[in-house]
C-alpha cells in the first residue's frame, strides 16, 4: 500500500538574507513496505524525520531522491496527485487547524465534495463516517464546542469520508487528555478492523503502538529499528539511545528482571505481566512444598 525505496528528502538551509548555506537531509535513504490493512507505527524523537516521511505518504512533500509509491502510484508524478491524495488521508496533531466547517456534517462533507462526489452520495458518506467514529449524534453541532478527542474524531471522519485505503495519523493524540487519547486510538482500531483500512500512526506515546503489526524507529532520517512491538520493546537500552522509552508495563517487567525475577522479555500488557508474575509466584510455592 505504501512503499518507499531509497527515499531521500533534502531541503536548502538559508541564512537571514536568503542565501543557501547548506543542505539538510530530513529523510535519508528509507525503504519501507506497508501492506494493505496493516497497522504500522513510526516512533522517533523530535526532529528524527518521521513527520517529513509521513508528509510523503499523501504527496504534501515529494521525494528529492528515491521513490515513494502509494497504492502503486508514484507520488512524484503530478498526474497521480489526485489518486494519491484520495488513497491516503492525513490527520494532524492539532484538531483546531484541520476543521474548517461551522457545522460538523459540513466539515466531514468537505472532502468528498471536493472530489466531485454526487450530493446524495456525500450525505451517505457523511453519515457513515460519523457513525464509524461514534460522532453521529453531533452532526449538527458546531465543531468548536467539542472536546479535543471529539474534534480529532471529526477530523478522522472527514478523512474516511473520502474513502481512502490508508490513513496516516501524525501525533493525533499529542494535545489530548487521557480520555481523548483512548477515544482516538479506539476509533482508529475499529476502522481498521471493520474497513480493512491501512493505518500508519506516528506517536510519542509508547502505549499506543503495542497493537501495531510493525513498528519502525527513526533517527536522523534513517530507519534504525524495525520489528513487532514485542521485538522493539525488548530492547530498552537501544530505545533510550534514540531518546525513546518503553511502555510502563514493560519497564516494570524489566526492573523485576533486574531484581532477579525471571520473566519473559518484551511484556507489553498489564494482564501479561500479572500472569507472568503469578506463574513465577506459583513456581516458588511449588518449590517450597
Amino acid at each position, binding site marked *: 500500500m505504501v512503499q518507499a525505496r531509497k527515499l531521500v528528502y533534502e531541503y536548502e538551509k538559508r541564512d537571514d538574507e536568503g542565501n543557501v548555506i547548506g543542505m539538510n537531509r530530513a529523510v535519508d535513504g528509507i525503504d519501507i513496505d506497508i501492506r494493505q490493512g496493516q497497522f504500522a507505527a513510526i516512533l*522517533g*524523537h*523530535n*526532529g528524527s524525520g518521521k513527520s517529513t516521511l509521513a508528509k510523503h505518504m499523501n504527496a504534501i512533500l515529494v521525494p528529492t531522491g528515491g521513490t515513494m509509491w502509494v497504492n502503486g502510484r508514484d507520488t512524484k508524478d503530478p498526474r497521480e496527485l489526485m489518486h494519491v491524495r484520495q488513497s491516503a488521508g492525513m490527520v494532524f*496533531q492539532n484538531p483546531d487547524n484541520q476543521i474548517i466547517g461551522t457545522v460538523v456534517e459540513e466539515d466531514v462533507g468537505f472532502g468528498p465534495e471536493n472530489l466531485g462526489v454526487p450530493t446524495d452520495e456525500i450525505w451517505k458518506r457523511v453519515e457513515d463516517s460519523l457513525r464509524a467514529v461514534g460522532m453521529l449524534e453531533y452532526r449538527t453541532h458546531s465543531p468548536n464546542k467539542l*472536546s*479535543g*478527542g471529539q474534534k480529532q474524531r471529526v477530523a478522522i471522519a472527514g478523512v474516511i469520508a473520502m474513502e481512502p485505503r490508508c490513513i496516516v495519523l501524525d*501525533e493525533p493524540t*499529542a*494535545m*489530548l*487528555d*487521557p*480520555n*481523548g487519547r483512548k477515544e482516538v486510538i479506539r476509533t482508529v482500531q475499529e476502522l481498521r478492523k471493520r474497513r480493512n483500512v491501512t493505518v500508519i500512526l506516528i506517536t*510519542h506515546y*509508547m*502505549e499506543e503502538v503495542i497493537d501495531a503489526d510493525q513498528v519502525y524507529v527513526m533517527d536522523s532520517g534513517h530507519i534504525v529499528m524495525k520489528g513487532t512491538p514485542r521485538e522493539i520493546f525488548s530492547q530498552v537500552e537501544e530505545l*533510550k539511545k534514540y*531518546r*525513546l*522509552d518503553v*511502555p*510502563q*508495563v514493560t*519497564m*516494570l517487567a524489566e*526492573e*523485576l528482571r*533486574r*531484581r*532477579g*525475577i525471571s520473566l519473559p522479555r518484551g511484556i507489553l500488557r*498489564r*494482564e501479561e*505481566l*500479572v500472569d507472568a*508474575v*503469578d506463574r*513465577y*509466584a506459583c513456581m*516458588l*510455592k511449588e*518449590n*517450597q512444598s
Partner: protein
Amino acid sequence: MSIRLEHINYIYSQGSAYEKHALKDVSLEIPQGQFVGIIGHTGSGKSTLIQHLNGLLIASSGALYYNGQNIYQDKYDMKSLRSQVGLVFQYPEHQLFEVDVFTDVCFGPKNQGLSKQECEIRAKEALELVGFPEKHYSQSPFELSGGQKRRAAIAGVLAMRPKVLVLDEPTAGLDPKGRDDILDQIAQLHGQTGMTVILVSHSMEDIARYVERIIVMNKGTKMLDGAPREVFSHYRELEQVGLAAPQVTYIMHGLKERGIDVRTDATTVEEAAEEISGTLHFLRGHR
C-alpha cells in the same frame, strides 16, 4: 508565602448565552515549597484555576490570599503578584519572539524595571537553572529544537525569580527523552530553590513520579486532594471522570486479585518493583 483559596467561584460570560460555571466553591491551600500536581480532563477547570493564582482571572466570588493578603482587596499590587507567581502556559515556545534567546529571557526582568546589568544576571541564572547550553544563548529561538525552545521559554519566567512556578503541560509534544529531561530539570529546580511548583499534566505516570500532592479537578470542583498513593487508590472514581491511575497501580491490584499479597498503593515503577520483588523474595525465603 502560601496561596490560599477560599470558596472561589468563577463564571465565564456571566449573564450571556455562553455562561459557564467553570469553578465551583474551590477552597485549598498550597504552602510555600510544595510540589503539587493538578489533574483533570479537558474542561474540568484546571486551566481556569491556575489563571486565578496570579490574578489573570478574577474570581466571581470568594477570596484568594497570597502571603496572607487578599489579592482582591483595593490597591493590591497585582504587578508584584505576577512577578512572584510565574505562569508557564502550554506550548510556551509560541511566545518566544526576540532576536536571540538571551534577549528573550531578559524581557521579563526588563519589564519589572530592573537595570540592564541585573536583567542579564537573572537571565543567565535562569538559563542555567533550566540547563540551557551557553553556546546557544545568542541563537535565534526559532532555530532551537523543541526541548530547547521550551527550556528557553521556562527560563523567561524564571528570570523574574518567582516564588511560585505554575506549569501548564510543560511536556506536551515532546519526545520521551525530552519529557524526562524537562521534568527532571523542574524537580531539580524545585529542590534547589525551594520554589513552589504547580504542575498541570495529563500524564498520570509523570505526576506520580514527581509530585508530593495531587489535586484532582472535575466539573469545576475539587474532587480529590492528597498524596499520590492516596489519590490513585480512588482509581475507579478517577476512571469515571475520564482519568486513570498510573499503569502500575492496575498491575498491583491485578496481582492482589490473584492472591499475591502485595500492597496496592505503589504509583511508580520503582515502588512497584520493590514491592513485588520483596513479596516474591519473601516467598522464596520460606522454602
